[in-house]
């Protein structure tokens, strides 16, 4: 040890298209210094023994960028400086022209729910469909069907019938009701809880692999940093996930009147539970439990915070019962914590476990959203159908 201590101020240049991503920093001797987030906030500063330092990006998808040497104490982070050109937003592809002799569908006509235009569109199966519909079964390739899709938005089905997407516009208030998606394939049925801040979901039926039909469901919400945090955890990158929460007090901010997103706040709160962090002012956790009854996760989170941090077991159990009465948590972690808590509560919790409506169903634990299969009798479903559910931000 020796040499002068140099204060290196590393500034994160945020281009408009830079997604939330973690930056891993190393000293000249390749000792790990820190993992910080590029999400919004003031320029970050770091004190290091000497220059140069090294940095690399760690993406939510699991991809790790190359190491970049930093000599300049006023370094500006950008896609170019970090050698990751793919951070740039891809150019929009021109929409394919419809076959000749057929009028192009005007989105404006459809948005006014013009029955004649809708009829025209539905009658030509080869064209991409713009369907403004709810609870209308939508057929996919490989015998998959979206039988329930109870959220508003614009649904589009691809020409080859393999992909259906739902896109929802952003509103100021993201505390909308959660929804549910049901996908059926052969005799397998998958139900997925959808958060109210959902922005986009894509359901894709893939080619058979080893005789197994694959249905891939990718989604992202209007809370980019929460999606990044979820994806980091899915890929086991705990430190990068932690950096998302360190950048600003995201979860707490998301429950302010201006930025009302209880779903994003819940994602952050689950991480706080995992990391065992004790909050100085946990009032916003209580707000999540008391003010959003349609989101059972809030009560689950507050219950476990009381149990773990405050050792208020009776009050924690009371909130577990409240959560059980409110229904199925939107997030899989919430369901796991709810069941675990009720189980460990002994007889006081077991009565609620017995009443659990999805007790006999097969939960997909690898999914970040609560999802379960309701398959028919043996011979039909499980061996033939594979469902995969994952967060997939707009780009990486």
């Amino acid at each position: 040890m020796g040499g002068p201590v140099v204060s290196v101020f590393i500034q994160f240049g945020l281009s408009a298209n830079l997604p939330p991503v973690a930056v891993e920093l190393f000293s000249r001797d390749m000792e790990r210094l820190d993992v910080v987030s590029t999400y919004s906030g003031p320029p970050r500063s770091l004190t290091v023994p000497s220059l140069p330092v090294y940095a690399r990006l760690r993406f939510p998808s699991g991809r790790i960028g190359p190491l970049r040497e930093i000599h300049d104490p006023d370094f500006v982070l950008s896609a170019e400086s970090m050698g990751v050109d793919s951070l740039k937003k891809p150019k929009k592809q021109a929409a394919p022209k419809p076959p000749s002799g057929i009028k192009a569908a005007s989105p404006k006509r459809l948005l006014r729910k013009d029955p004649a235009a809708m009829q025209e569109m539905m009658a030509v199966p080869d064209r991409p469909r713009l369907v403004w519909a709810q609870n209308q079964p939508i057929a996919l390739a490989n015998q998959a069907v979206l039988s329930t899709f109870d959220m508003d938005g614009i649904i589009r089905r691809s020409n080859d019938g393999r992909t259906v997407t739902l896109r929802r516009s952003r509103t100021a208030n993201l505390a909308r009701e959660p929804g549910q998606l049901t996908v059926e394939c052969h005799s397998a049925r998958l139900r997925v809880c959808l958060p109210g801040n959902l922005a986009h979901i894509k359901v894709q039926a893939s080619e058979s692999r080893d005789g197994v039909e694959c249905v891939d469901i990718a989604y992202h919400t209007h809370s980019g940093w929460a999606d990044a945090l979820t994806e980091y955890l899915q890929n086991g990158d705990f430190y990068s996930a932690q950096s998302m929460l360190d950048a600003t007090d995201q979860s707490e901010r998301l429950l302010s009147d201006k930025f009302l997103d209880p779903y994003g706040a819940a994602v952050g709160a689950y991480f706080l539970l995992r990391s065992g962090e004790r909050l100085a002012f946990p009032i916003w956790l209580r707000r999540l439990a008391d003010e959003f009854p349609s989101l059972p996760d809030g009560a689950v989170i507050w219950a476990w915070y009381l149990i773990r941090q405050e050792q208020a077991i009776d009050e924690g159990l009371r909130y577990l019962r409240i959560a059980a009465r409110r229904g199925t948590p939107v997030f899989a972690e919430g369901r796991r914590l709810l069941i675990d808590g009720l189980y460990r509560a002994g007889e006081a919790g077991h009565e609620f476990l017995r009443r659990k409506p999805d007790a006999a169903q097969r939960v997909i634990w690898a999914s970040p959203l609560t999802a379960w299969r309701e398959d028919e009798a043996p011979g039909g479903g499980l061996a033939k159908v594979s469902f995969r559910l994952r967060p997939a931000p707009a780009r990486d």
Partner: protein
Amino acid sequence: MSLYLRRNQGGALPCLHAFVIGVGDYPCLGAGRDRSLPALQALSSTPISALAITRWLEQDYHNPHCPLGTIELVLSPAQTLLNGDGESIDVEAATMANIETAFHRWFQRCDDNKQNIAFFYFAGHGLLRDDHFLLAADFGDPRALVRWKNCINFTRMRSGMERCRAQTQFFFVDACQDTPDEILSHIMPQGQNLVDATLYDRVASSTVCCAAPAKYPAYGIPGGPTFFCQALLQCLNGVAGYRTRGNWVVDSGTLMSALVHVMENLGRVHGLDLRAEVESTKPAPLHYPLDGAVMLLVDCLPTARRREVEISVRHSAGAHAGSPAGDSRPWTHTLPPGEIQIALITSTSTCNHVDRIQPPAYEWEGRL
């Protein structure tokens, strides 16, 4: 007996206490089985993997703050082994009764000191039916009146381990999470929790790494260790390492992400869909390797010309590695951190690339 090795007594000195289970034989799940249970093949890779993990703990595990204490080991088929201290050990079969007895001893040792590390590794068949069940060698025994008696309910076991005073716990599950048609009609199977906890119990750091997420079979090489075991050992030997205060450390945080990376890379190399499912609470250190390691993955474009290319890698420390033309691609190798020069060589051209590499992995795709 199931106590394979005793290095330290524990007590005042914190230790790592391991419980390793390797199940290869499933005599009750063959042709003459109960038809309400799935037919599951015998496995050759799982006992080999369990032994590989045991040997690693014996020979390579290094943690000056929490040295190796004991290893409980059960294997099926049962066998006699020579441990690192030169003792001949009759390792017991991995039946449920033996697992329960060994688990009880392991729990007591872990419970001795809150700074102990509890290390659990299971390799064998697994089933998913809301909870994750790990099958003992006598699962499906027709003499058992309860069909799901001879299996561990891992979901409940992991939760129950919060009752243990050891505040750092690692669980490695090298087993499928499959749901065969036969068990669809079974109503809420229970299995054996082995331990339970209340809401008053808690643990600071609990890490679970599973070989495959739900619905994907875990893969193993017949006669060799499983891919998950290979990946885990690579990670423990430095791929999951980071350098801090002059020492390399593998903690649960870096171990999880490295394991996911290595499994995916192994999948790309072998043309399989390999994944790991990982979850952890607050990170805690596990192992202090002598050096870090980087999993290098090299490929080239266009893919049609992949096999024309010879790959040569030179490391700044003097090491040299490579793969001749004709070998499968992508190519993988493990190197220490540092500067490397990669060359893609054909009969007509050479493409060079220089970069600095750091754990866990470095991928490069050269273009001819």
